[in-house]
């Protein structure tokens, strides 16, 4: 219950008189049939709680614009009660942040609701090759050198927090970062899957899973295992309390069988069986796979490899995991595939809620897939342009939420 809400009886007593006055004034003017009955200030007709309710329906950028109209509106959108209102609104369509260069963290964020690109500055991140993970408006960044600097931030409010250094092997060969935020408590968990080749032992990899909990502010090492012939990479996501990460064949296996998926129950309820025994095969030979959480369902966007040459991309598919089976959701139509120009066998893809973004590393073209309507659509042209032939473009998606704090 909003603390602003009163029972109908007291509401009647408090506001009726005011409403009657304003209504009488208002109806007199409008009865004149005069279009310039907008001589009356429309927003004065609404009490604060109703105006707040309206403003809470707005996309984030519009909220800031509304806050710059007049003192009353500015006070309303800055109030704590308004932020509470916002947390009740269902998730907004995720934005996609595209980096302008490979060295600087600057770039533009795409808002699919208003179809605009904003020159948002990201806090904490130093170079585009840092690891990124996002959930419910919070984004975590981890550096790509020592893999020991970890921050959680809200890109809209720019508030951030530095977290304790992750445990386990420093300078691991591969790390995968994932995050899960609770909409109810605003607490979050961050997972890191580390892979390091066992020195002297060919095809053997030390795989460890570490978990950070914002409630305890502590790291825990949940699992350590040696994989033979497989390693983890940098693709992982948490859906509904289960951590999923992609594994890659390191040799000795069939060429078509290059990828796999390992699920790990973070609540620790799973059996003590080896993780590798529990792995799930991918639906077809892939050139690359990108994992994402769409309304707590695991979705994978994958580059489909040619039959005879599985390392060459011939299309892009979208699958959803149901239990241990993959259900195909969509295949990218040829005209969009061609629209990217030359699509490498690897590409960037990220998404949440109902939207999937796909982007080629070689250009700033951005494609959206709407899971609800099963529609493909190009974004508005990005202000970032290719300045030299080998320029690489990367990005990630996040939900714009003004009110959530790390």
């Amino acid at each position: 219950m909003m603390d602003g809400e009163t029972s109908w009886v007291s509401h009647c007593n408090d506001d009726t008189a005011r409403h009657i006055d304003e209504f009488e004034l208002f109806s007199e003017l409008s009865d004149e049939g005069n279009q310039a009955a907008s001589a009356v200030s429309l927003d004065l007709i609404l009490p604060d709680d109703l105006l707040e309710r309206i403003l809470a329906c707005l996309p984030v950028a519009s909220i800031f614009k509304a806050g710059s109209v007049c003192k009353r509106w500015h006070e309303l959108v800055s109030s704590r009660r308004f932020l509470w209102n916002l947390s009740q609104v269902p998730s907004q369509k995720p934005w996609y942040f595209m980096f302008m260069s490979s060295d600087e963290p600057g770039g533009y964020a795409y808002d699919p609701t208003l179809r605009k690109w904003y020159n948002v500055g990201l806090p904490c991140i130093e170079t585009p090759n840092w690891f990124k993970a996002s959930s419910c408006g919070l984004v975590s960044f981890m550096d790509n050198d020592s893999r020991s600097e970890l921050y959680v931030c809200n890109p809209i409010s720019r508030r951030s927090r530095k977290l304790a250094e992750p445990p386990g092997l420093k300078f691991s060969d591969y790390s995968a970062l994932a995050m899960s935020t609770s909409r109810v408590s605003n607490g979050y968990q961050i997972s890191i899957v580390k892979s390091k080749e066992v020195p002297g032992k060919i095809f053997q990899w030390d795989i460890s899973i570490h978990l950070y909990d914002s409630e305890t502010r502590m790291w825990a090492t949940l699992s350590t295992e040696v994989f033979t012939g497989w390693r983890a990479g940098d693709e992982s996501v948490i859906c509904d309390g289960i951590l999923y990460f992609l594994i890659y064949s390191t040799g000795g296996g069939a060429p078509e069988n290059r990828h796999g998926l390992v699920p790990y129950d973070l609540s620790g309820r799973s059996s003590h069986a080896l993780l590798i025994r529990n792995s799930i095969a991918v639906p077809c030979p892939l050139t690359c796979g990108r994992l994402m959480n769409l309304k707590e369902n695991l979705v994978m966007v994958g580059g489909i490899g040619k039959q005879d040459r599985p390392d060459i991309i011939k299309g892009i598919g979208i699958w959803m995991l149901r239990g241990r089976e993959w259900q195909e959701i969509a295949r990218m139509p040829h005209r969009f595939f061609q629209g990217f120009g030359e699509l490498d066998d690897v590409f960037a893809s990220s998404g949440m809620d109902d939207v999937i973004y796909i982007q080629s590393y070689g250009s700033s073209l951005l494609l959206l897939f709407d899971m609800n309507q099963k529609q493909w659509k190009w974004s508005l042209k990005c202000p970032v342009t290719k300045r030299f032939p080998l320029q690489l473009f990367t990005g990630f998606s996040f939900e714009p939420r003004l009110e959530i704090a790390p």
Partner: protein
Amino acid sequence: MRYLALPLLSQNLTESTARAQTLSLYLQLSLQVSLSQRNESTMSSSSSSLPSCPKKVVTLKSSEGETFEIEEIAALQSKTLENMIDENCADTPIPLPNIKGKILAKVVEYCNKHAEVGVDAESLRAWDAEFVNVENTTVFDYILAANFLEIPTLLDLTCQSVADMIKGKTPAEIEKTFNIKSAFTPEEEEQVRRENQWAFE
């Protein structure tokens, strides 16, 4: 049923005392009668599930005194009206002194439509879109009425429609649409803009 305490009428009472006592008796008696009538009517309304009872209708009275009838089942969408129905206050016309007839008629129409069975989501959405496709000032009237009568679906619909009016507009355009009198000065606006410059480009 309480028993009336009958005062003993003795010959020693003065005339005025006797009159006073009779009057008091009469008042007590009439109170008892109206109480029992109320009990009867409460009992009968709780048996409205009998097929022979007519469909319950609630009467609403606008600010100008015009009356509008709405079926109880449609009226239940308003938490305000639902409370009144539960407490048996809905047997007489309910005065709504802050809602004009023109608006009340439309609100009744909305509740009736949303109480209908067998309407598919798609056509209801289209109907809702048409419902709010009216002048700004009318939508504001709907918001106030929906808020007063506590009709959550109508309140959401109308608030979203005003938000849609604001969405995508510049601060200057918002000022014009809503005819804001006490807008920020250019200096004040500049200061606010600077806090989140990216949203204004």
